[in-house]
């Protein structure tokens, strides 16, 4: 009794039951792996790094800074993607982990200038993972809005630690420092900003390779399973609580590494940078970019950096009253968010891949 009906090849039924259900099935199973996953992802990463190198070589310091900004936000959002898109835990407090990373980096540079950069990054990542472990363990039993509320408070509450210990963490002024720039050997080839952009992208791509490998493999499968149906996941042998915490730890590690990159590039770590807005923007951008795929994180990072720029430039280009001009970038960002979410409920990546499928097969969109 072979099934008489062929499943429609395209979309899932619209289903609103679980969080992040709109995430597409990843291609994990689709075609036989092209060699070792690490090799495959590594090659991608090298190609991306080369592209960044070319881009920064061709442009000036302002673009370099933005490229670095895109890189570190890519890492942060990719970490959030694992947590929200893959494991279905909505966190409104990802900025708190960036805070941890930034301050770890800043403290090391300020107090132990002899520690090499790579060690600083590793320390930041470890600190983030620890923070993620603590937060994940404290919130493992929470779901939906309760998790969202708790993480929201985390985003607001954690930066206050800096105010509590002004002598160590610099209080409201935070810490300022200058981190090492391009090595002297390369001084003719790359300038400091360019070098920093390359360092950020190297770190980000290493992080992405790990995230991609984890998402595509058994861990990702487990996280998606518990996102879709925690009870069935548990009965299939997945330790739900531990898997949730693992997702938090990895995601926090990535966020923290991104924070460390930010501190390294800008030479500052200040509580007001890690205010609630940052966390909200990260999550909003993630949804805008598209849940469930690392490409979504890429579009998200681009949006975080360039929608802002576009809004500011728009404000400058138009002859406007001061109050209107000042507030235009905020309104612009909000409007872009609304329009994209309404027009492409599955984000930029979802829209693009639907377009790709549309090209190759006749239209088969789901109906409600």
């Amino acid at each position, binding site marked *: 009794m072979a099934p008489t009906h062929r499943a429609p090849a395209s979309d899932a039924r619209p289903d609103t039951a679980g969080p992040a259900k709109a995430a597409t099935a990843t291609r994990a199973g689709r075609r036989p792996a092209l060699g070792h996953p690490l090799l495959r992802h590594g090659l991608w990463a090298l190609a991306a790094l080369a592209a960044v190198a070319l881009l920064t070589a061709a442009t000036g310091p302002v673009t370099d800074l933005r490229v670095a900004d895109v890189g570190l936000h890519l890492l942060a959002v990719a970490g959030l993607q694992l947590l929200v898109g893959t494991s279905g835990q909505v966190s409104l407090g990802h900025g708190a982990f960036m805070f941890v990373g930034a301050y770890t980096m800043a403290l090391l540079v300020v107090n132990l200038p002899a520690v090499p950069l790579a060690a600083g990054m590793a320390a930041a990542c470890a600190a983030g993972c620890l923070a993620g472990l603590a937060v994940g363990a404290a919130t493992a039993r929470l779901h939906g809005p309760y998790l969202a509320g708790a993480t929201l408070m985390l985003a607001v509450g954690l930066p206050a630690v800096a105010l509590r210990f002004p002598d160590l963490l610099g209080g409201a002024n935070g810490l300022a420092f200058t981190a090492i720039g391009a090595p002297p050997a390369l001084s003719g080839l790359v300038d400091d900003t360019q070098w920093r952009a390359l360092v950020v992208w190297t770190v980000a791509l290493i992080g992405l390779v790990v995230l991609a490998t*984890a998402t595509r493999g058994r861990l990702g499968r*487990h996280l998606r399973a518990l996102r879709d149906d925690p009870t069935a996941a548990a009965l299939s042998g997945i330790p739900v609580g531990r898997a949730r915490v693992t997702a938090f730890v990895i995601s926090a590690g990535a966020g923290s590494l991104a924070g460390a990159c930010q501190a390294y590039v800008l030479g500052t770590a200040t509580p007001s940078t890690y205010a609630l807005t940052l966390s909200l923007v990260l999550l909003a951008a993630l949804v805008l970019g598209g849940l469930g795929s690392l490409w979504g994180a890429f579009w998200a990072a681009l949006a975080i950096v360039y929608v802002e720029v576009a809004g500011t430039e728009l404000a400058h280009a138009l002859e406007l009253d001061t109050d209107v001009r000042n507030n235009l970038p905020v309104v612009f960002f909000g409007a872009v968010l609304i329009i994209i979410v309404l027009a492409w409920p599955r984000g930029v990546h979802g829209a693009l891949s639907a377009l790709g499928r549309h090209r190759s097969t006749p239209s088969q969109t789901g109906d409600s």
Partner: protein
Amino acid sequence: MDGHVLSVEQLTVAFGGLTALDRVTFDVPHRSVVGLIGPNGAGKTTVFNAVSGVVRPREGTLRRHGRPLRRHRPHHLPRLGISRMLQGLGLFPGMTVLENVMVGADPLATGGLPGMLTGLGRAPRDERRVRERAEAALHEFGVADTAHALPGTLPYGVQKRVALARACVCSPELLLLDEPASGLAADEVSELAERVRGMRAHGSVLLVEHHMDLVMRVCDRVVVLDFGRVIADGTPDEVRADPAVERAYLGPPEGDGDLLAPDGPEEARDGR
């Protein structure tokens, strides 16, 4: 070590004021199919929940091969050689059929977290093995051609088979099936009966079902629950003949003006 894959002894489960199971006792022998039937709300699913560690019994013991099972959690089931198919299927809607079944096969993998993060060490081999096992299961259940579809897009009968494939992919020693025949057409039920009977070759099955035809056809033993108590326990024929079972569950066998009265010998046992 005795021969029972599962022994349920004096199992009592209560929810607030409601006693869902009251000193329930029965065994599932090695390589057998045991049916668990009873009216709606009798506590059949609750027995499964207790066995799978979803609810904690108030009293009583569960034994596997004579060894007591205590404080086990749902995710320990695969390790215990137990596998469960949920009443509502419980497929993961955001994952493909193949991935769904791979989740079931994942307990075969042995690598740890570092491997999962880096793809190094045992991870690639694990992955290959899991995938091969899952693909084999899909073949076995005749759903290989849907491997890359999302379950939501498939007919219900196909989804059922996917769920069954996921439950069986690790060749469990004890399979818990909760109403596997509901929503299936008559021919599909027959096929299901074949499969369940075939499973006796590897292990045992505890089957909850309202489809009497299926129960009578495949079970070696039938346990009947009513209001959380065992009211009958025996071979299918013994149970059928039990007046208490008839009163509580099956209803009068012969229709007096009953529209649903069976009309032919080969259908005589169809309760639906």
